[in-house]
Each structure stands twice: as C-alpha cells, then as structure tokens.
C-alpha cells in the first residue's frame, strides 16, 4: 500500500508518516522548507520526501502528475493565520485557502480517478473543526477549516460507490504544530473547557488519523473529532 502525505515534516504530518510506516505503508510526503527534518524522516521511515509549495497550483499539479499511484492521501499541511477580521489581509486569506482547501481539492481531483479505477482508496483531511462546533477562531482559519468537512461529504457522495472514502480528522489543541502559535488565552480556555483538560500530542492523534485512513472502511464523508472532548 502506498500513501501520499502533505505536510510530512510538520508535527502531525511526521507522526502520521511514522505511524503509516509502522503499519507497513510506504510512499511520499511533501514538505516546504525543512530539508533537514525531511531527510531524517525519509531515512527513518523509508518514505520519499518531496519539496512542494502547496500554495502553488501549477507546481502541485506537476508533482501530482508525476506521482506513481497511491491508495491513501493524508492532507496534514495547514496554515494558521491569526488576527481579528480587520487585520486579516487578502494575502493571508488566500494563502490559508490555497494550502488548506485548494491543495486538498487539487490532490483529490488528481488522485480519486486512479483510486476508483483500482477499486478504492482513502482521503483524510486533517483539520481542526467539527461541523457542529462553536469556537472563537480567526475568520480566515475558520473559513478554510469549514470547507474540509463539506469537501469530504461531497467526495463521499460522488465517489463512495467507487470505493473512495473521504473523511476529516478534526484535531483539538496539541502541544506542537499549528497549536503552538495560539494565543495564551485561547490555550487557557481550552485547558479549562476540554474534557481531558490537557493538550494532546501528535503521537496521540496520529493513530486515529491512520485508523481513519486504513481501517474505518465503513466511514465516509464524516468528521472524526480527536480533540480531548470539546
């Protein structure tokens, strides 16, 4: 089985690549800048690393066109813009949409036909927002995150009969990755209001993401909340 992981050198992405490798899965991960981490991860896991700017659609299409078939796609790359409405620039909005949403769309458009032709496959978008949640998030971040469950639902409806599954793993606050950029008050609120009253770790959430990709065969178009209870 072969997998493609976007954002492989991120905190969550690298834990996902390791967890996939532990299940005997090989494949490719993308990274943007972290050449050192990418080399180490490739050596540890047997995955190949590819430097791809996910916000550049042409570069992304070129990368995907040259990619050997994959059975599993995990989108673990993300952007976490901060700031209130008035401070959110067009550029921040665009970059967040490009990396979070458009890259997932371009990957799905490129990969789903091959998955369907080979009898099925799985897409997992790693996100931060369950459909029903009410959280004080920056507008650009919330809007991009909100697109992921809708996209998974649409892909499930259109391609579920071909054996293609698309789901979202909606993570709570972790002690690493995008969560690390969060302001102190939001972190305190989370510690107060979440059921576990603690931050999660990438190593804790990676098994759930891999489970969603490899094992949860009857789950499609759904959001799996892995958030310590919020």
């Amino acid at each position: 089985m072969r997998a493609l992981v976007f954002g492989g050198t991120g905190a969550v992405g690298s834990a996902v690549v390791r967890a996939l490798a532990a299940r005997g899965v090989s494949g490719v991960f993308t990274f943007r800048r972290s050449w050192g981490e990418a080399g180490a991860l490739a050596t540890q896991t047997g995955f190949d690393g590819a430097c791809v700017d996910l916000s550049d659609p042409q570069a992304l299409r070129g990368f995907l066109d040259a990619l050997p078939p994959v059975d599993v796609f995990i989108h673990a790359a993300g952007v976490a813009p901060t700031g209130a409405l008035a401070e959110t620039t067009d550029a921040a909005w665009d970059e967040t949409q490009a990396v979070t949403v458009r890259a997932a769309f371009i990957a799905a458009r490129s990969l789903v036909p091959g998955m369907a032709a080979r009898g099925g496959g799985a897409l997992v978008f790693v996100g931060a927002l369950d459909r029903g949640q009410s959280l004080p998030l920056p507008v650009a971040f919330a809007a991009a995150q909100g697109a992921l469950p809708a996209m998974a639902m649409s892909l499930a409806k259109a391609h579920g009969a071909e054996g293609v599954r698309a789901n979202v793993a909606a993570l709570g606050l972790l002690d690493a990755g995008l969560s690390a950029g969060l302001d102190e008050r939001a972190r305190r609120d989370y510690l107060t209001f979440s059921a576990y009253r603690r931050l999660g770790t990438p190593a804790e959430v990676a098994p759930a993401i891999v489970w969603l990709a490899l094992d949860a065969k009857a789950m499609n178009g759904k959001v799996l909340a892995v958030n310590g209870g919020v």
Partner: protein
Amino acid sequence: MTDTPILQGKRALITGGSRGLGRALGVAFARAGARVAFTYSRSTPDADEAAAHMTQASPVADAPLVFQGSVADAKHVSETVAALNRAWGGVDILVNNAALTQVLPIALLEEEDWDRVMDVNVKGVYLFSRAVLRGMIRAKSGHILNIGSFASERIIDAPVHYAASKSALRGLTEALAREVGRYGIAVNLLAPGLLDVGLGQMLLPHRIAEYLSQCPAGRLGSADELSELAVFLVSDANRFMTGAKIVVDGGL
C-alpha cells in the same frame, strides 16, 4: 506493529452480548486479547452460543463471564459489576450496547412501549456507566463506548421512541465525557447506520432499498466490521478522542 493483541489484558463488559452487534463485539474484543463479560436479558441458548464463539475467538480460549438480567434493573447492574470486581478486580471497558428496537408508528405506540425503550436504551446506560465508573475513577483510566444510531443524526424512518432514546445518548455521552475526562476516562458514541442486525433486519424491504439508494457504500454495514472499529475506539491506541460521535454509515 507489535504482535501483542491490541486489547491484551483489558477487562471488557458488553451489555446485550448474546446476539447481533453485542455478540460481534464480544468476539472481536476476545480476538483482540480482552477478557470479556456480557449481559443478556432473555435467550439462554443465544447466550450460550455467543459465549462459545467468544471462547473460540480468544487467543487463550478464555470463556466470557455471562450475566442474565435487564440493564434497566438496578439490582442486576450492581450485582453484575460487583461480580466482575470480585472476578477481575475491575472493568477497563464498558460498551453500552443493549437496546430495544420496536418498529411502531406513533399512533400505535403505547406509553408502556415508550417507557420500556427509554428504560433499556437510556436508563440502562446511566446505571451501568455509574456502576463501572467508581472503579474507573479510582484507576484514573477507562473507556465507555455507547452504541447510538444514525437515527439521531438524520431525518429517517425510525420509530420515534427509538430515535429519541438514541439522541439522548448523544447528550449523555458528551456530558459524561466532560464530567469524567479529568480522570482520563474516555466516553464516546459509536453511531452506526443500518446494519445486517437489529433495526436493519426489522424494516420493510422498500425502506431498506430507499436507504441503500442514498448510501454510497450501497450495502448495509456488518456487525463484524463495526466491532473491529470499536476495538480501536476502546483501546489504548485511542488516547485523545473523548466526547466524540463516530458515525459509521457508509457515507449516507
């Protein structure tokens, strides 16, 4: 991957384990290395057959502990959990699976039908959860998995008392997850779509056909595949998921 079964050493209690999903859960948990106990209310031959399947599935041919009674009977609940505490020293995993399903239009639904479904499907969950939580809180760990239904998620043809009881489990799951999260105890809700057991066997064929026409998977779920998913949810590999509702319906 290690070869140690994922539930090795875990002590699991499943309510309503003689038939259907409960039996499949017991078999999957036993196969995954857990010690299994289950309750059942009526058919001893079914319970005997289920116990034989679970023993066979266990890597060490461990026979399940079996208790007869209604989950809505507080005496049965406290005696069952006390017996497990004596036999095992505690319970690590509780699956609240026992449920009544009765396909009736509301005009024919008598007050006693309503009460019976609410007693088994909701009060039973409260009673068994309360009983095992004392030990789990002391141990500062444990998993409670409630079995819900997609009938609480979608507007579908489901009997209203059944849909109401399964919706109640959403609130119960979330509030309980919040209350016992500080002790490291996970409480989650597994909400299947129509399965090859339970409600899926009771609906009229044209209702099933309607369902399948909307379901991208194009088939009913199987009790066995649901049970394999449940194994992960109650295992130590699931460390940051609580208060979650896991809807497994083939993409409906």
